[in-house]
């Protein structure tokens, strides 16, 4: 009994304390060093932030270069799929263009009318500053949905900026480095966005699920939402302006109320970073 306990202790000691052949560090030393780093992270000291920003700059650029072959394979498979669906897509697009053409004129009139009415009731009109950024790393990890873009604090990127794909909301900036930034996608589990559902202007919170759709939360059970309603940002909290389209509402049953995002989040290449400011004029 004593011998087997001794063997266990010797094996553990040898595994964690002994430096192996050609090894510079012992395992236990590095484990303590990692715990130290984690503690510093938790305390959020300025020095750890500088370390993190430097590390991120190096890693994001390297990761972009190393991901090139995988991206090529991915693009090739997407191209094949696109070619295969070309004719069907053409018919759908043709139909949509006709519909959009008629809606465009109507929208322009409504936009102007809306501006006029907002001025009458003294509501803020937002001015948006936008810049186009390239997606360096499309981090499709099973646990975290985020992208790294090639614009950072040197380009005036700020925390909380909206990330748009065309005119659709796809995420917000959560980390800013000198020449890169990380955007948390709307599909991430940690993403919570105040939304309004139209028609009806129903206010709710849209949470990510880690998939191509989100989940409507904090909604009273007696509220009825029409299937295929459009989900926009509500502007609550003041982070985003109201009315940015996010997705389309699908109700499968009473428990499952999902929102399919307009934008294909796994295929982002260029995005717009937008900040909204009050227009004083």
């Amino acid at each position: 009994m004593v011998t087997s306990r001794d063997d266990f202790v010797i094996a553990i000691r040898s595994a964690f304390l002994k430096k192996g052949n050609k090894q510079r560090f012992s395992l236990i030393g590095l484990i303590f060093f990692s715990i130290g780093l984690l503690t510093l992270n938790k305390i959020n000291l300025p020095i750890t932030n500088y370390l993190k920003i430097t590390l991120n700059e190096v890693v994001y650029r390297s990761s972009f270069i190393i991901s090139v072959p995988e991206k090529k394979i991915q693009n090739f498979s997407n191209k094949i799929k696109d070619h295969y669906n070309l004719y069907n897509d053409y018919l759908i697009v043709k139909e949509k263009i006709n519909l959009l053409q008629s809606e465009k004129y109507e929208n322009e009139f409504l936009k102007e009318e809306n501006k006029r009415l907002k001025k009458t009731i003294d509501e803020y009109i937002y001015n948006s500053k936008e810049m186009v950024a390239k997606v360096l790393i499309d981090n499709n990890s099973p646990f975290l949905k985020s992208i790294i873009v090639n614009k950072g604090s040197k380009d005036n990127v700020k925390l909380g900026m909206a990330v748009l794909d065309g005119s659709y909301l796809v995420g917000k900036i959560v980390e800013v480095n000198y020449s890169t930034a990380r955007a948390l996608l709307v599909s991430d589990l940690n993403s919570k966005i105040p939304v309004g559902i139209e028609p009806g202007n129903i206010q709710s919170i849209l949470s990510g699920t880690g998939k191509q759709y989100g989940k409507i939360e904090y909604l009273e059970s007696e509220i009825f939402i029409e299937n295929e309603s459009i989900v926009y940002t509500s502007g609550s909290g003041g982070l985003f302006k109201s009315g940015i389209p996010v997705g389309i509402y699908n109700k499968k049953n009473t428990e499952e109320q999902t929102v399919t995002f307009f934008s294909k989040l796994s295929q982002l290449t260029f995005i717009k970073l937008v900040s909204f400011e009050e227009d004083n004029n």
Partner: protein
Amino acid sequence: MSSKFKSIIRNSFLFYLPLILLFVSVFNEFDFNYLNYQYFSFNFPFILIFYWSLKRIETLGYGYIFVAGMFNDAVLGFPIGISSLTYLIICGFAAYLRNITLRPSLIKDWLYFLFTILVANSINYFLLILFFSIEINYYKIFGNIIFTFLLYYIFAYIFDIYRKIISRIKT
């Protein structure tokens, strides 16, 4: 002279291949997520680290594993140090198994690997959820653990062949 130089380059590349693979996989998140199969993903660095810590730790080295963990955290946006800690825990388990094993067997290693990744993942996600308030999809973690475990057998078999090739080159 030139052929000798070429063979040195080739041999060094072959010798450091696991280390190169480790860094490529942490930079690239090499797990075939883009195939978009629901719940299919696996943690290639776990397989690589466990196997080489068990069979030949000089190939990877604890210092490089620690750095790879830091890079993985930066890529994934996790707090710096969490992956390093997880990777080093795997190294610790593998080193313990190496010390107590007299007759190595792939099946025993395989089952022990399951126990190791369960403990390592538990510590990893416990820290992430409790101290850093990051939400995580448990089904996906479960899928990831299962596929990592299942694929270990295949990768271990491939790595065994690779080790034989390396030892033949050395002799």
